[in-house]
Structures are given as C-alpha cells and as structure tokens.
C-alpha cells in the first residue's frame, strides 16, 4: 500500500475524492462466462513444472483473431488442414513412438464420445447467442472435419492421435463459436 507523500502538494486530491477513487476497487464480473474458452486453451497438459515458469502466451495470435474477422477464415483453414492430416494418417500413420501400454480401443472411443458431448454442450450456449446473419460457414467446415475424424476414429479406435486431433478441432470450434457470439448483428 502506498502512502501519498504528494498529498500536501498543490495537486493533492481532495480526501473525499481519494476515498471515492479507492472505492472504485471492486470486483466486476465479465458479461460472459469465460471458462469454456479458458478450458479449451488449457488442453490436457498439467501446469508447467518449475523452473520453466510461464510458457509463451498463445494469446496475441488468439486476440488477433478476434480483432480481424478475416483471420477467422484462417482458423477454419487450419482446422481443415488438421483434419486432412489426421485423416491422411489413418492411411499412413506417422512414425510416432508407440505407447508402452496400448490403451484399450473402447476407452478411447468412450473418451471421444464423452468429450464430444461436453464440447457440444459448451458451444451450443455460444451458438444460441450468435447474432442472426453472422456467417457460420467456418463452424460448419470444422463440424464436417470433426465428423470425418470421428469416422476415422471408429475405423481405427486405437489411434490416440486421432483423438487428440478431434480434441484440437473441438477446441477451435468452441473458440470460434465464442468469437462469433460476440459479433454485432
């Protein structure tokens, strides 16, 4: 807490005004529930261990998307590329190291179904608030790609990378839904 040594100077604020300024320090809830967007950005990773400290923020590119609608198209394109890669990998999976203990296929499929339900519930709230007339074609594109990845996952239920790709698409879908829901009609 500071001690105002400027108080006796000519520019000192009146005590009442100083008290009023202090009273401005109050909680202020955002207009929207920000948790779904935060959750989507956390991924499945645990907090970084010390001494790594804070990883570089993914935020500026993130915020940039909100400021320039044209970049939303880039997001959808990235999602498409991600899905295309994922689907291609069903034919020629990348030479990734195999897990020491393969996860049961049914577990991955169950997790994918559960994740699908949770993400859908999250973005439906945003979709309901999306102003009429806003172009949602990018959302539809992501949905199509996610459907393709789910289909690929059903054919190859051991493919953990498909699950991860699906999760990435859902995170992008959720964030894009949130952005579109805040646009003016």
């Amino acid at each position: 807490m500071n001690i105002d040594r400027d108080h006796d100077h000519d520019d000192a604020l009146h005590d009442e005004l100083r008290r009023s300024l202090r009273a401005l320090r109050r909680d202020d809830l955002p207009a929207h529930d920000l948790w779904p967007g935060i959750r989507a950005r956390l991924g499945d990773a645990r907090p970084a261990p010390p001494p790594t400290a804070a990883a570089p923020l993914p935020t500026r590119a993130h915020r940039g998307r909100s400021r320039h609608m044209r970049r939303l198209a880039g997001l959808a394109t990235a999602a498409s590329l991600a899905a295309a890669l994922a689907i291609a990998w069903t034919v020629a999976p990348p030479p990734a190291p195999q897990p020491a203990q393969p996860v049961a296929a049914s577990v991955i499929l169950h997790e994918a179904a559960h994740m699908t339900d949770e993400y859908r519930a999250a973005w439906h709230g945003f979709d309901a608030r999306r102003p009429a007339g806003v172009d949602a074609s990018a959302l539809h594109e992501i949905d199509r790609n996610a459907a393709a990845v789910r289909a690929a996952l059903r054919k190859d239920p051991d493919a953990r990378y498909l699950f991860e790709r699906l999760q990435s698409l859902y995170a992008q879908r959720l964030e894009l839904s949130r952005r579109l829901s805040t646009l003016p009609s």
Partner: protein
Amino acid sequence: MLTTIVTALMPANAPAVDDDHSLVRASLGGDTAAFEALYRRHVGRVHGVITRLLGRRGQQAEDLTQDAFVRAWQALASYRFESAFGTWLYRLAANTALMELRRHRGEPAIDGDEEHFERIGHPDSAGHTTALAMDLERAVATLPPRARAVLVLYDVEGWTHEEIADGLDMAVGTSKAQLHRARGLLRTRLGEQA
C-alpha cells in the same frame, strides 16, 4: 458434471485461503475442475482490475481475463503458497493488462490523442452521455491510457511508484509525473461537470 465437482471442492464453511491452496494443489496435478473453481472464485477480481486499467469493459477486457487465467495455469508451479493465491493472481492479472499497455506504447494513439481516448473511453456513450452526467469512473476511463494506468495503480489499487515503474517499464520520476498529469486532467474533467 463439472458443476458438481466444483461444488464439492468448495465447502461453504472452510476458510477461503485454505480452500484456494487445496485447489491450487489439485490444479498442479492437472485437475481442471479445481482450476475452474479458482476461476469462479477470482474472476470478478481479475476482470475488475483489468477493466480499470483498460478503462473499459468489453471484448478486450474479457480476452485479457482469459489470458490471465491461462497464464496463471501455465505459471502455477511458481506460486509459493506464501501469500494468498488471490493476491498472486491479482498481480498476474494486473501485469497482463500492463503488458498490453506496454505493447501499444509506441503507437500514436496511446498518449496525446485525447479526443481519440474520449471516444474509446466511452464505448456506450454514443451521444447518450453528456459531460455533465459523467461520474468518477467514467472520468477516469477518459484519461490517456498511461496516465490512467498510473492513477488507477496508485490511487485505486494502492501500488507504490516503484511498483508502477517496474510494471509499466518506466522511470519512477515518470510515474510521478504521469500521476500529476492524471490528477490534473481528472480534476479538470470533474470540474467541467460540476
């Protein structure tokens, strides 16, 4: 489901600080439901300080609030349990907003263009608000960003000039000068409505 977990993690009678520490420990283990509970507890404080520093509510304040919580998740291992988690998070949130202010420091619109900031300080004015109806919060919001940030940090948040200088990457003398300027502008603007 998450709501159930969050509720279970927030016993009504337990001390808040102990609860926060338990939730932080759970979060460190990757428990996002615990982190959601921390979010629900502290989002008002985090969004509040960011809004005051930006001078307005809206999309940018919400984006930065999101950023602050993501940064908190990433940096959670650096929290030492020596102070209240809320204090640590509040400071991180303020620094997130200050980083944004610093990022725009070189841009022409940051200081000096007061007419511009009269506009952005009043996102909802649009002809509805006259100078006479301006209250203290709005008057603060119309200050140029760096002057406003110094005034908010000093007169509202209670930071020292040394802390402000560090947060805004400026000299202590500059912080004092900006405070002098901000108070003068504030008095002028409040005087205009008297």
